[in-house]
Structure formats: C-alpha cells, structure tokens
C-alpha cells in the first residue's frame, strides 16, 4: 500500500480526469497496476483508462461531478493499491534480422560501428520491459537497449514502416503492431501478430510491465512462421 501518491487531480475536459503522481520509486509499475485495477472493476460511467509515465487519465461518458464522492473513491482505490507482481508474463518474440526486412539495419551498424552479428547479439541478450502501449493501437515501447545500441530518432521519419518491424531509438525498442510512418531505426521484423482482434478479451499480446526477449530467426524461418500466422488468423 502507499505505492502511489497523487500529486494532483485535474479536470481533463468536462468528462475526464487527469491524475498526476509524485515521483516515487515504483511509480510506473504502480500506475499500470492502477490502470489494470480500473479496467477490472470500472468506476461508474467510466469509458477509458489511459496510463502514461507519470499520470493516469480516466474518461467518463458523462460530466464528472466533483461533489459526488467519485474523487474520494478514486483516492481510496489509489491508497488500497498493491503492485500486481504475479501478473507479469515473459514473452519470447522471434525476430529476423535481415537487411531485406529491415531498411535501417546496415545504416545502424555503420553508425554504431559494429557488425550485424554484434548488433543481433546486443539486441537478443537483453531482457526488455514493456513500458507502455500507445502512439498507434498496440505499438509497444520496451526499455532495455544495450548502452552501445542507442541512437536518437531519425531526423526524417520513414513514410512507411512495415507491420511487425522491430526498431530502436534511445533506450527503447519499439514494435510496430501495424504498418505506419515512423521515426525509429528498423533493425528487424517479427512474423507474429501483436494485435489480434479475434481475441476479444485480450487483443494485445503484450501488456505493460511484461518482460520480453528477442529470439533471432532466419529468413526461411520468418517466412514459414509468417505463413503459419496468416493461416491461423484466416486472412
């Protein structure tokens, strides 16, 4: 208890609340636990929960009444919060590090002055943590890049990054759940789908605070797994 301290509660529009939290040791984990708690047992008329690095936004289908006891209920939920350690899952995500699938691989190796093999070793030897999901539906921000594998974002974003792309920027690795424009350096691609709307209760494979390791696969394995993935998803 007492894992999370509310710094302030502000209106975020007439139907939303922004909770900002003081900088305590386990703030990020606690915010995600609070978000999970809110999703499990929603407050009355609550329609969305948006966790971020130092805040949580709650959205409602009607204007927030500051005299209704809602704020006291939220404060109580925050005080009662325990960080849910048992829920953390570890995922092994297969990645093909082939230049034909990763447009930036050669440029990244040149910039970091390492071989492709060294880059793959650095990227597959870390255990990453899912910091948050966002930007795009299901885009995963993972922290844990090797210190010798950190680059600022691209000056000019790519107009199209393929679905499944594994990309790096700063301390983070990102997984593009969907094809989109993007400013991160693409070093590989996974054949597995992160976002599966057929799975109604949990369409996203990863959740915040989960652990991830990347397993290198060959181009042949990539194509085989991609074909298997497509047949199971029925497209």
């Amino acid at each position, binding site marked *: 208890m007492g894992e999370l301290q509310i710094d302030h509660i502000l209106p975020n529009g007439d139907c939303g609340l922004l909770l900002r939290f003081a900088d305590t040791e386990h703030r990020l984990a606690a915010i995600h636990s609070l978000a999970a708690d809110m999703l499990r047992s929603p407050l009355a008329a609550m329609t969305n929960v948006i966790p971020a690095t130092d805040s949580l936004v709650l959205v409602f289908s009607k204007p927030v009444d500051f005299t209704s006891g809602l704020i006291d209920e939220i404060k109580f939920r925050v005080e009662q919060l325990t960080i849910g350690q048992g829920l953390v899952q570890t995922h092994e995500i297969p990645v093909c590090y082939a230049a034909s699938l990763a447009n930036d691989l050669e440029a990244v190796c040149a910039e970091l002055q390492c071989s492709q093999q060294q880059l793959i070793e650095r990227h597959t030897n870390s255990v990453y943590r899912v910091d948050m999901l966002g930007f795009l539906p299901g885009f995963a921000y993972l922290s844990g890049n090797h210190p010798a594998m950190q680059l600022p974002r691209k000056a000019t974003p790519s107009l199209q990054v393929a679905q499944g792309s594994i990309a790096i920027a700063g301390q983070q690795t990102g997984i593009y759940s969907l094809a989109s424009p993007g400013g991160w350096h693409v070093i590989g691609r996974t054949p597995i789908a992160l976002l599966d709307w057929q799975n109604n209760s949990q*369409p996203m494979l990863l959740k915040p605070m989960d652990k991830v390791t990347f397993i290198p696969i060959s181009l042949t394995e990539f194509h085989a797994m991609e074909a298997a993935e497509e047949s199971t998803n029925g497209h």
Partner: protein
Amino acid sequence: MGIEVLQAGTFTTVQDKGRYGWAHLGVPVAGCMDQQSAQLANWMVGNQPTSAVLEMTWTGMEFTCQVDCSMALAGAEFECSLNGRIINTDQVINLRIGDHFKMHRLLQGVRAYLAFAGGFDLTAVGGSYSTLVVAGLGGYAGRSLQAGDVLRLKQPTTVASKTKPQWKKLKRQSIHVIRAMPGPEYDCFTPAVIRQAFGQAYQLSSAANRQGFRLIAAAIETPKGFHMNSSGLVPGSLQVTPDGQTILAMQDAQTTGGYPRILVVDQSQIHQLAQIRTDEDVYFYVGHDQRKVVKLAANYQ
C-alpha cells in the same frame, strides 16, 4: 443485398458511437464526429441512436440500391436526387430495388450522416463498427468506401415517414461559440496569454481531418523551457505546439499527447466543431458551471 457504391465521395466511412475501453492499448475512440446528426438520422429511420451510419466529408455519395429500404440523411445539407429527380432530404427517403441515389452540391456544413433502417451487415471490432483508417480497423474493410464496394444491409426495412424537426437542421453560422474547460496545462500559460487564447477568433485550416484540426489564430506563447511527459488525450483538447500554433484533437486523435492543452472543449459540444468551415470564426469560452468545477477541483491540487 445492399447498396452498390458508384461514387464514394472524398472520405466516406462507417462510424458509430465510438470504440471505448481500448485507449490503454493506444486505440483512439473514433466514432461519428457529429454524434447529434448521426443520432438524428438514426432516429428518423427507427434505429438505435448509436447504430452505425455512413459519415461523408465535403462530398457525398452516389449508389444504386439492390433492395427495398428506407434511409435518412442528417448533418451537412446536400442537394440530392433519386433517379435523376431532386428530392427533399428533410424526411425519410424510401428506395426500391434498382433506384439510383446521388448527392450533388454541398449546401451547408461539412459532414453528412446517412442511416439505413435495420443497419449494416458488418462485424464489430472491439465492440464498435467505427472505421479507424490509420489502423485499418473496423467499418468496411478498415478503410473509406470506394466505387464498386457493396455495402450489405442487415435487415433492410421500409419505415413510416418521419420529418426532421426544423430546429435540428444544420444552419450556417458565421461565428461558433464553443464551451470549454481550462485544459490540464492551463496554469502553465501566463494570464495575458490565457486572455488572448479565450479572446481571439480561430479559423479552420486546410489541415483538418478526423485526427485533428490545425487552427489558424495569432500564435499562443508557450512558457520558455516548458516540458511535460505525454499524458492521456481526449477529443476536444486544444494543444499548443512550440511554434504557438494550435491543434484541436478530434475523434481519431492519438490516445496520448505531449503538447500543453490550454483548453478542452466540452464533450457535448464537439459535434458543432465537426461542421465548421474554413471561413467561419470559432471562439472558446469557459461557462459558469465550468468555473464551478474548476473551483471544486482546486481542492485536489
């Protein structure tokens, strides 16, 4: 059986009330930009108010009908014809097999809503029929309609005629006055800048889509060295970029944002913004009730 699209218009998508409960995965709510007009169209044909409709932007559709059915148009006003004859769109439009419906000139507003009695035969994704084009999600194949598409109707029915109440019809306004709450980062701006932001007129730029509207107004100065971590963003948020320009988040906006928000439009007013044209002025104000909320909320800061 349904309608066969001959011309889809520049941007026509299936939308409903929106996709709720997935923002924590980064999924924007989407949904009709003008919920009130969509509800009016649904009411006219006897659908649930939140049923899926077609949202058209700036230009209308042309289609042939493969089945007898009833439909209604609301929101932006278009000149429309049925089998070549101009028709009244203030009432339910009954179509027969083989009928040819065409929307011509835009008369008022920006976004029109077309509801069919009995709704569309589509699959909901994440509890909603709304199309989120950026993610290829929902609606008709996750994209805007194209010529040649056949949109199947679920239970096409012919309903008794209902007339649109005149006071609910969209009227041209040269000035829009929109109620808002002070935004979460309101206090970061100087009092002079806040007075400016709530005193000046804003106009819509050409960069306006379902994700957001870039507005045109005198630059709003952000305090020097301002930094914030990204946090949850709701439609209606007026975000101030470092160059002093403003972006109003709309239904397809990303779920988080890192620009300070000087104000957030009341959710019940967003439908008005959906119909604003480039030559009209928009003003924002904080109402009496909103001031009361701010005072109450101050206890928690």
